[in-house]
């Protein structure tokens, strides 16, 4: 899916939360969105999912304006935070709901979940346990799984590695890489974990104070560059 942001601006009072004159993502591209707290990452993702209306500019998906054509929703899987979960449902109930929104039958839902068994063994979960009774990490896994198992063309994830145990982080990385390679899935992954994000993503967009500061292809140097950038910022914010 081709994603394009044009002249996007979002203000909260006098403060400019996001100002992106031009930015685009090619089909099959896997992009990491990094930045300090308050840099505008979540605002960026919310605008991208039409959960927040920009004051100016527009977002296009495959050439169609996001706010005027909702067809992108049938091709997008996303998980930003717990508000994407219906917490009084059980895991199977929630996944059935999400699958139905993508037009999947019960059999297709079951089949689609199969490859994700190592990440979250849905076939073995307690079917009477509500999502709100899960630990933060397990609830997050449910949200990520709901975004991925429907085989979307476009995936948007906010901080997917946070709160996951190390084995789950590794499994998730493998899943994302495999989806990108096999299915040519377009992805945006926002993360504070620079190691994971540079492992998975082919391109990094660095946001600071609502603006794109860097937009680079990932290379062997990227992690060191990002570490140096944020170390400098930590020094400047401390002083």
């Amino acid at each position, binding site marked *: 899916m081709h994603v394009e942001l044009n002249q996007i601006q979002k203000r909260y009072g006098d403060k400019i939360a996001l100002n992106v004159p031009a930015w685009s993502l090619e089909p099959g591209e896997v992009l990491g969105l990094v930045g300090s707290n308050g840099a505008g990452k979540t605002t960026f993702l919310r605008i991208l999912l039409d959960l*927040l209306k920009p004051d100016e500019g527009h977002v296009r998906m495959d050439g169609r304006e996001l706010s005027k054509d909702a067809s992108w929703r049938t091709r997008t899987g*996303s998980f930003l935070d717990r508000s*994407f979960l219906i917490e009084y449902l059980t895991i199977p*109930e929630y996944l059935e709901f999400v699958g139905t*929104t993508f037009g999947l039958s019960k059999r297709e839902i079951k089949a689609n979940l199969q490859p994700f068994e190592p990440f979250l063994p849905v076939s073995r979960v307690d079917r009477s346990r*509500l999502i709100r009774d899960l630990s933060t990490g397990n609830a997050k896994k449910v949200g990520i799984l709901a975004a991925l198992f429907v085989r979307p063309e476009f995936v948007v994830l906010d901080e997917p590695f946070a709160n996951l145990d190390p084995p789950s982080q590794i499994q998730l990385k493998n899943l994302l890489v495999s989806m990108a390679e096999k299915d040519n899935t377009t992805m945006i992954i926002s993360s504070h974990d620079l190691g994971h994000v540079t492992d998975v993503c082919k391109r990094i967009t660095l946001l600071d104070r609502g603006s794109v500061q860097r937009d680079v292809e990932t290379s062997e140097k990227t992690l060191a560059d990002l570490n140096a950038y944020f170390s400098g910022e930590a020094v400047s914010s401390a002083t």
Partner: protein
Amino acid sequence: MRSLPTWRTYPLLAKNQYRIAFRQMQSQQGWFMRIVLAFMMAYSAFILLTLGFFFDRFSIELWPDATAVDVVNRSLLAGFVSLFFIRFLFQKTPRMKVVPYLHLPIKKNALVSFFQSASLLSIHNFYPLLFFVPFWMRYVVAEGSLVGNSMWIISIFLLLIASHFANLLLRSILKRRATLFYLWMTLFIATAFVDETAGIGLQKRASEYLFSNILSGEFSGLFLLVAFTLFMLASSTVSLHRAIGNSHDDSHAEPAKTRSFEVPSDWGLFGQLLRIELLLMWRNRRPRHYLFVSLLFSTMYLVFMLASGTAFDGIAFSALLGLFASGGFALNYGQLMFGWDSSYYPALVSRNVSYSELIRAKITVLQISCGVLFVGSLPLFIWLRPDLVPLHFSFMFYNAGVTTMLIMELASRNRQFIDIGKSGGFFNYEGFSAKHWLWFIPTALPPLLFLQVMNDSPRLGLVVLASIGFLSLLLTGGWTRYFARGLASRKHSMLEGYRTSAR
């Protein structure tokens, strides 16, 4: 490290509780809601004070052969049981307030004793006194000896304290042994019902015997009440100790098991949304509270109003009765729809959930509720006021066709976040705004005025009302598309409203 001494713990906790209460008052409601709440509180206080000071004027009408004190004495036990049910529905327990302090070096005993004592500062304990104290001053003091009437007012305080701690205890039992609790409550209500309807009057006689004895200066009754109060205090204190002991380990506690149900696959997204709506009601505290209150309202209130005879002879009051008898749930629960979904609204609107299907599922729930309440309350109408059955029938159609749509128009503009896990107690008006109060005008006034105009030919009026409802029911598809368009255009403002009011 040594724990904080008790003498320093209490002022610290009191200061925190004061801050919390003050900030909650400041943050929760807008000016309109504050004015409405202040008015409601002042109005109910006025009613209670008036009843307390002038009780004989009311009692002489209903029970001409008994003195005011006799009437109150024989109704006290039943009165306190009724108050207990209100407490049970609305009063909060101190358990959750204790939890944030458990990791601090504060003695657990000090925490428990502070929050048990502080919980007594409740409107449920204060408001009954607005009746009992003036009643005591005006009527009881004049009847008994100094010792007797002092003991009488002390026994009232003891009953309030006992029912306060009994509520805390029962809530804790409900948490641990729900089935046993419901069995016990059913048995209790059935016994009370048989006692009253079979003319045994055991409760009345016991109440009169106990409080007349206390008033005459007999200490045995008072001792009984003291013992009962101490037992409730001790039991609820032990229960709170146990509860907070377990809350250390909540992360490993076995969560409550829940039952699910399937919807036919060919219902597709509509079926899923219908299931979500029904599970929302069943699995979350505040929506469930609205469900129960609607059912309670549509049965107990209806029995009371229908049995009161002359109160509903006027067509206007009958219209209100018709509106609530089958539309009680739609009016009560429906007005906060979408607000109920506020904590997961992004889960709906970021996915391929069509607004039409979302609206259709919600309207279906409300329309079915009108039918269910109609059928459920029909025997009461047939039994107590068969002449009002046509009105009940007519309003079933009106509510399903018109009231439901008016409520949906209101609900699709909700922008206030609602914590569905919170209790739906008194003065929890989260999710409400001025428009919810004002909306009663377009909802209730038109049928009321119409029936007033048709006073000379009420049957024709009811036929017209039912026809309007039926016609609107046939237009449900059109209504759905209209609401869906509105919902789509207000999507961002609703999301923004939920996000900002949740902070």
